[in-house]
């Protein structure tokens, strides 16, 4: 039922909330109770002065009765229904539902928002649990050590004599294992402490380096102003490990070279005209597409093209840099979705792949991705080039010609895509079909 034909339902809803009898409202509005009954059941249209009178009696703006629940609420209800594959909700009656039961509709919309928020938390935590080798290995080590200690201690605690040799061996084992346990416990606490300090805290050199970029918003004004990258790295990398400092120096050197080749003022001017289109911009500046992608991802947060994300991987497919977008997370440990164009780009060097991508199981959030693989170093005689692939991502504009978006995921364990030919492992998400290969 269309929204504007539900005015009667809203009148009845509002009257009931106020505890007003149909006869009282009818009398105050100057109409018969039977006529009001027809209106309230949406069998008579209402408008003009009568609508104004009834709205006045009910103490609401007339638009509250004619427009009913906000469009956003209805949109959320539709989104909630369409997000569930098994839903039998009457999508075409979302307006009616929101109009007749606004409290329930708001509750459902809030629940939907909460589910979405929790799903994101689950994604983040699952990604950590599923792909955090340090955590998994430490816990396995601790459980194995505890098992050995428990077994040896039980043997020693049993009544009866034990051969002195065996006794010495078990004492020694318990001593060694308890030392191992203490060490791994300390390592785990230290690791979890560092995790607890914030999402940008990290343990691998790559993560440490990426955390510096994230804290800076991936934009370094000092580099744009021509300050030597070594100086910038020295200032930012004081608390990093040696390996992370080396990675940071290398990354900042590259960013400084990019900035020198494509100075910020002229780039911002071009971006204002052409948007975040790395190919159009590369043509404008006679630059290579990968450099342009890096440059776009290094623009300040208020750049006219909006946010730009970036993933870089080496020829083995291992991620070497990741700048996520709010709607396009990038796993910390590189077990990414093989359907990202980043990876097929490696098999088609120098070809720029352009794709519209959408995360399976999520509404909206379509991104435009461009990917290209280029040699990472200067050529050498009779040596195959060592490739590096870049993938730039930016929120997609509305599809002009109805171009469909390809369903991708973050990583298989938390991906909702059904029948995916690239699935590595079953999904943790509930649908049994996601377990299939």
């Amino acid at each position, binding site marked *: 039922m269309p929204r504007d034909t539900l005015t009667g339902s809203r009148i009845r809803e509002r009257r009931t909330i106020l505890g007003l009898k149909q006869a009282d409202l009818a009398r105050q509005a100057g109409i018969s109770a039977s006529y009001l009954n027809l209106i309230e059941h949406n069998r008579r249209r209402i408008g003009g002065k009568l609508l104004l009178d009834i709205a006045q009696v009910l103490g609401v703006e007339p638009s509250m009765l004619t427009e009913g629940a906000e469009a956003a609420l209805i949109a959320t209800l539709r989104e909630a229904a369409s997000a569930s594959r098994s839903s039998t909700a009457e999508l075409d009656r979302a307006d009616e539902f929101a109009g007749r039961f606004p409290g329930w509709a708001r509750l459902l919309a809030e629940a939907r928002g909460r589910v979405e928020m929790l799903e994101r938390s689950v994604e983040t935590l699952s990604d950590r649990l599923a792909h955090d080798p340090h955590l998994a290995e430490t816990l396995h080590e601790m459980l194995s050590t505890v*098992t*050995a200690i428990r077994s040896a201690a039980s*043997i020693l605690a049993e009544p009866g004599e034990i051969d002195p040799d065996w006794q010495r061996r078990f004492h020694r084992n318990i001593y060694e294992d308890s030392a191992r346990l203490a060490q791994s416990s300390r390592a785990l606490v230290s690791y979890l402490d560092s995790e607890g300090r914030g999402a940008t805290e990290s343990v691998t050199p790559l993560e440490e380096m990426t955390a510096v970029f994230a804290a800076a918003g991936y934009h370094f004004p000092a580099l744009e102003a021509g300050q030597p990258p070594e100086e910038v790295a020295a200032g930012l990398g004081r608390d990093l490990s040696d390996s992370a400092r080396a990675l940071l120096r290398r990354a900042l050197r590259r960013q400084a070279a990019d900035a020198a080749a494509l100075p910020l003022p002229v780039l911002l001017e071009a971006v204002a005209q052409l948007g975040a289109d790395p190919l159009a911009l590369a043509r404008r500046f006679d630059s290579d597409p990968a450099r342009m992608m890096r440059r776009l991802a290094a623009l300040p947060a208020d750049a006219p093209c909006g946010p730009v994300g970036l993933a870089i991987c080496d020829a083995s497919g291992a991620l070497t840099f990741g700048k996520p977008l709010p709607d396009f997370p990038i796993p910390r440990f590189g077990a990414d979705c093989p359907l990202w164009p980043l990876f097929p780009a490696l098999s088609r060097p120098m070809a720029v792949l352009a794709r519209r991508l959408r995360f399976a199981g999520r509404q909206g959030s379509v991104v435009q991705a461009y990917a290209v693989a280029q040699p990472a170093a200067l050529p050498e005689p009779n040596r195959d080039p060592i490739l590096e692939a870049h993938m730039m991502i930016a929120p997609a504009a509305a599809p002009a010609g109805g171009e469909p978006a390809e369903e991708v995921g973050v990583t298989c364990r938390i991906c909702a895509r059904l029948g995916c030919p690239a699935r590595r492992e079953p999904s943790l998400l509930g649908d049994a079909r996601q377990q299939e290969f």
Partner: protein
Amino acid sequence: MSKHVLLIEDEPNIIEAISFILSREGLKVETHSDGTTANARLRGARPDLVILDVMLPGKSGYDILRDLRAEAGLADLPVLMLTARGQTRDREMAERAGVSAFMTKPFSNSEMLDTVRALMDGALNGDA
């Protein structure tokens, strides 16, 4: 003749403790700590019971068990699986692979021993 147990586990001190407990029961315990060569050893040794860790260097306990069940002569061999991962899906994976009993680390000696005895007597076929 004493019964023969093949213990496939990579943690030396767990090997030592289990070996001691089972030897004391009169069982002959042979140990093996590498996943990649475990199946060859199984075919050669023909044990009465296998105690199998899940996380092994080279090849997982699940893979070893699946390979073992695929062999006609070893399809009915009792296998007790030990793992630090005790979640439902780990148990299900072990069951699908054909485990006879499944124990989560850390286990008690008596619990392990009871399970071994039950498997030897053919009285157990499922979870410990």
